[in-house]
């Protein structure tokens, strides 16, 4: 591989969600942690399932399966904690994943206008074409319907 080609490869974490795999740029990942107690309290943001305590921080869990797979998934193997950039700063957000994660290097093909907003690009890996996720779109509500009248929540659970 030439030096030029090598420069175009980017480190990414492959995550599994149901029977699909997705990629996130490795520099957006804070850590991968085992599932822990989810704390829930009343709120009206459908995308947020609850929060976990991690290293003294309270980290929201964003349920991304519904957006990516079209259905929620109750099983989870890990939380992938990502650095989600907001306008002025970044915060940790936990993304539930259902299988092993893998660190790879791959070349990204840019997303086209017809791609969903949560698609930052595409990679080809192991004969599979995989979406590279755009965290900002994935963890904001621009893509979903207005909040329901009936609010969320309720009990704390393990």
């Amino acid at each position, binding site marked *: 591989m030439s030096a030029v080609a090598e420069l175009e490869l980017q480190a990414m974490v492959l995550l599994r969600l149901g029977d699909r795999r997705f990629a996130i740029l490795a520099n957006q990942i804070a850590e991968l942690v085992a599932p822990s*107690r989810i*704390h829930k*309290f*009343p*709120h*009206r*943001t459908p*995308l*947020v399932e609850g*929060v976990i*305590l991690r290293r*003294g*921080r*309270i*980290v*929201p869990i*964003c349920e991304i399966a519904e957006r990516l797979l079209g259905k929620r998934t109750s099983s989870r193997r890990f939380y992938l904690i990502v*650095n*989600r*950039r*907001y306008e*002025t*700063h*970044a*915060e*940790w*957000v936990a993304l539930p994943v259902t299988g092993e994660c893998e660190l790879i290097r791959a070349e990204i093909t840019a997303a086209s206008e017809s791609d969903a907003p949560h698609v930052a690009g595409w990679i080809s890996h192991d004969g599979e074409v995989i979406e590279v996720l755009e965290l900002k779109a994935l*963890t*904001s*509500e621009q893509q979903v319907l207005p*909040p329901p009248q*009936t*609010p*969320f*929540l*309720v*009990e*704390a659970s393990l």
Partner: protein
Amino acid sequence: MSLAARTKPQTLKSEQIILFRVGGNLFAVSSASVQEVRSVDSLAGAAAEIKDSGVRKVRHVLQRDDKTLFVVNGTMHFGLPLTPGTLIFILRQTRTALLIDGIEKMGSMTRLQALPLAFQHEERHWYRGLTALDQSVVPVVNPEGFLTAEELVLLEQSLSLRSAAARETRTQGGQPQ
């Protein structure tokens, strides 16, 4: 990027809080925000009904000194299953009297973390932030977050109409037959 600076929890010397339950959920409020705690029974005679204001979570008003307070049903505010409220917090420097299930305990918090930005709706107004107590995460309510400016306008309008109707009734009642 100012990640470290912004996500570092706000450090407090120590703030006294009251942990209370609404609809089976635990919340915290700063003790300094609570002017008075009364049982529902003790206020039964002092509360007046307020109807058709358009603010469903407020069904009663209380007169305290020269102020009219709106009794906010905590379960309806948070969208929780209705439970019979037993206590009322009269919140300092607000027009809110909050109907709650009961007080869990008094305590103190030393750290208050801002509500993560992933939360994008009314909860940003409801809570000052989150605190971790005994390995649990408890939302710390914002005393000013129970009634929006729009809701206060609706409630004031309803009060005015009620007063006008009462005056009219008195006037009609006082006219000679």
